[in-house]
């Protein structure tokens, strides 16, 4: 439900980066979204289309890379992927876990015309 405000943030950040790098024409924004973040990717792309229509960014693309959930065991230090919430390390059975990937909500790069 809060995708609209997130997309507005994305547009603001990209505008700053375009100015910083002297970019005139943007092609795409590459966004990383963790599977555990409370975001619906389809809504993000729809909001992006709506917010950029009739602006210089119209027609540019918001690419979303979904980041799978990865845990690290704080005891044996091994990393393992998970479909959802994990409660036990598959290697050493420890319950001392930390989610190291899956909560991302970040702009990774922008693609621009030469």
């Amino acid at each position, binding site marked *: *439900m*809060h995708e609209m*405000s*997130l997309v507005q*943030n*994305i547009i*603001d*950040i*990209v505008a700053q*980066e375009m100015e910083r*790098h002297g*970019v005139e024409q943007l*092609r795409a924004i*590459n*966004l990383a979204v963790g599977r*555990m*973040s*409370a975001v619906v990717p389809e809504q993000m792309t729809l909001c992006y289309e709506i917010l950029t229509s009739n602006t210089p960014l119209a027609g540019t693309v918001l690419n979303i890379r979904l980041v799978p959930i990865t845990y690290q065991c704080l005891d044996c230090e091994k990393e393992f992927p998970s479909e*959802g*919430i994990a*409660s036990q390390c598959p290697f050493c059975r420890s*319950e001392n876990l930390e989610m190291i990937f899956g909560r991302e*909500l*970040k*702009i*990774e*790069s*922008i*693609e*621009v*015309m*030469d």
Partner: protein
Amino acid sequence: MVNIPVVRNVLEVNDRIAEQNREIFDRYRLLVINLMSSPGAGKTSLLEKTIERLKDRIRIGVIEGDIQCSFDAERIAQKGVQVLQINTEGACHLDGNMIREALPRMDLSALDLLVVENVGNLVCPAEFKVGEDMKVMMLSVTEGDDKPLKYPLMFQESRALIINKVDLLPYVDCKVENVRKAVAQLNKDMVIFEVSCRTGQGLEAWTDWLEKQVQGKKGGPLS
């Protein structure tokens, strides 16, 4: 075509504003709680009962976040504490900037505890910091014991969970034991209180704990 690396957090502006709010709160040694739940879980009732129990010992203020109307703020005002209503006009959560704009309209020097009652929603508010010391969430037993695993983010982000309406347990299928099991999986440090705002059951444990948190911030070092 050229690819320019950026690597910036989408929520960086909000995080920064929340951090600035937090610095202001710290200066007043004021404990700030971001209270979240689904609509109807009992946030405003909990605040009414909490204020009744603590207002002789702690100076409490409330910021009410609602999409529309000021019913909740009127209920809190009846209790004789500082209260401010924010209407988000459709937005599903409060954010750092809404709180920042509200602060000049409150007398923070006259408070020990500020509770920000977020918009009723189990998803979005968890992503947006407002400058709080801690998030506290409520779950009412009528919502069902599957909610922690269905909405894990908020349970992971919160310091404490208040399970409300336990007087209704005989009439619903929710098992507190199942909620506790799921929470242990998501956030094993979460402090859990079982209460009924209607009967008063369990409220003392909650208000005792809350008072300790307020005192901790009062006496704690400035961060």
